């Protein structure tokens, strides 16, 4: 069966609370079976958008379709969608099995069928042997599994997860990233999850929608979001990036020539949304790990800039440097992998260094 690419489809969805535009004209298509992340800083409207999908928040305008059915004004209890709440919302007056079976009560199943499906769900989330525990007799990680089982047992078309890992401690969180991803692959249900943790989104999701101020600014795969951010704010939010103010001075053979002040003139690939015109102010962005630090001046023709090493820190698996360049206020941040044990040695702060980069390592961004 062909998987729909618009399995979940939002069109121009807006929601405001008083004067706050929590979600502002969001349109998104999410494919069947996709692991999709909504990523953005606190207060950007991720939770609100998720709650609109779940039916807990009524949008002021726009439409929501899931698997072709218009659910815009469908009440939450009638939607083929289930949610894992941020605090897991485990019913305190029920034990683990009763919690997991909660949503099956009214589906007209026999006792034996319910029991069998609960067993399946318990096995899926690896909770065997904990069925008779009270809701207060399980750990945070187990509570999360109960919440997952309780939602998955309904066989929803879409599973919504609001910051599913934020209530767990760091080690468990990293382990659950892998497990959650594996679980999603196994059950094949479309997952939409909210996070403000970019690493979480990058490591788990097939695609990520980056939100700012209620708007979706970019939807892309993790690698493309990192390597080809569409704007300066997306680039700064996902990982870190050095920005250089520049202006367009010409075009040549499909490339754009920009003058980036201290970096000098360079020719770059135009951004996908269209080439900027001559004279337009743009930004050149280079990620710290795309810069190489050297003591000797590079051979002629390479992209290079001379600076002074102002800070060097040893971070175990990598080194981090700050280099100041004449004519720039902010130091340039450089990261290098410690691929040989001697890599971190020999850098003296205050010394003169050269930074070089591959032409493909620099991105031309709209200002």
């Amino acid at each position, binding site marked *: 069966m062909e998987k729909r690419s618009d399995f979940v489809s939002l069109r121009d969805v807006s929601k405001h609370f008083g004067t706050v535009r929590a979600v502002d004209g969001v349109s998104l298509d999410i494919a069947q079976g996709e692991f999709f992340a909504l990523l953005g800083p606190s207060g950007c409207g991720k939770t609100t958008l998720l709650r609109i999908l779940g039916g807990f928040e009524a949008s002021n305008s726009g439409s929501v379709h899931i698997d072709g059915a218009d659910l815009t004004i469908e009440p939450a209890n009638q939607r083929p969608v289930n949610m894992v709440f941020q605090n897991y919302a485990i019913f305190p007056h029920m034990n683990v099995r009763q919690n997991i079976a*909660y949503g099956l009560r009214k589906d007209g199943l026999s006792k034996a069928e319910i029991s069998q499906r609960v067993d399946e769900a318990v096995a899926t989330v690896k909770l065997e042997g904990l069925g008779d525990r009270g809701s207060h007799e399980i750990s945070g990680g187990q509570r999360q599994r109960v919440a997952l089982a309780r939602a998955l047992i309904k066989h929803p078309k879409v599973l919504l997860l609001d910051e599913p890992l934020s209530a767990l401690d760091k080690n468990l969180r990293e382990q659950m990233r892998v497990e959650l991803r594996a679980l999603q692959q196994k059950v094949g249900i479309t997952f939409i999850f909210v996070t403000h943790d970019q690493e979480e989104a990058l490591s788990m999701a097939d695609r990520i929608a980056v939100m700012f101020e209620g708007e979706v600014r970019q939807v892309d795969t993790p690698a493309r979001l990192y390597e080809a951010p569409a704007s300066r704010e997306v680039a700064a939010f996902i990982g870190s990036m050095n920005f250089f103010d520049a202006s367009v001075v010409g075009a040549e053979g499909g490339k754009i020539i920009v003058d980036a002040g201290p970096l000098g003139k360079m020719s770059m690939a135009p951004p996908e949304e269209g080439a900027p015109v001559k004279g337009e102010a743009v930004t050149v962005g280079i990620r710290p790990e795309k810069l190489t630090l050297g003591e000797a001046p590079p051979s002629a023709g390479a992209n290079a800039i001379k600076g002074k090493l102002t800070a060097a820190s040893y971070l175990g698996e990598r080194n981090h440097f700050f280099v100041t360049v004449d004519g720039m206020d902010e130091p340039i941040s450089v990261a290098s992998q410690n691929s040989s044990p001697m890599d971190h040695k020999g850098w003296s702060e205050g010394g003169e260094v050269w930074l070089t980069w591959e032409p493909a390592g620099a991105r031309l961004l709209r200002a």
Partner: protein
Amino acid sequence: MTSEAQTAPPAGTIGRLRTVVKGAIFRNAGLRGYILLSPTLLVLLGAMCLPVGILAVYSLWTQSGVEIDHTLTLANYLKIFNKPSYMLLIGKSVLISLTVTLATVLLAYPIAYFIAFKIKRHKIVWLILITIPFVTSYLLRVFAWKIILGYNGIINSGLKWLGVIDQPLTFLLHNPTAVVITLAHAWAPIAILPIFVSLEKMDRSLLEAATDLGDSPLQRFLRVTLPLSIPGVVAAAMLVFIPTVGDYITPQLVGGPDGMMVGSLMHAMFFRANDWPLGSALAIVSALAITVTSLGVWFLTKQARERAV
């Protein structure tokens, strides 16, 4: 060896004692708890155990004329258990109070629910407004119901004015129903508070989870909201049930002969018959009846709650 020397207790009996006490307080959470509770325990001892103890001792004495015979005997209890009219009165009082409790909780629950879930801002103002009647004198409130339900009261004159009746209705006042109405109204504000608290502290995401899993609003109420508010309901029920069994003002004023409760009898024993020992025994038997009934109700709600899951 050196470490032992370092931690050795200070010499002398006093010093050793100090170390022992210090160690006991530091290591024993239970003991620390009692020490922290000691003011409360003292108040409880003085204000509860002592009076009840005195009452119990009195109930074992007997009244002979104006003197009190101080020999310990169960005569008063035997008298009560052998006199059907006393036992009936206690039973009826418990029954009336149970009805009052039921009516009060049914009245208070929707109000508490409304404030907890439907009011978004200034909940405290609503709570104060609702509890204000409680500040006015209890007697005044009972008299208000007398005026409403009375022979020439508001209901009767209203109905007469409307031409619905030509003779005043006499079944409104001076019966158990009037007692139930008056007491339920008087105690509703007290019952609202614990129910409100149990609803207010309920995690709202639990309700959303129930909806998410397919519950209609009614199913959600029955499966999540109600079971989770049961502690508040039980607290409210106890707060109403326990004091109303012994109430004698309301039965006296609006109850008539049928609406008489055990409180009136106790009052009569202490102040009119001047038989304190018998009054004390009555009080103890009533307290036992209240305890047994409360435990029974508590047990039944617990069972019902477990079955509802």
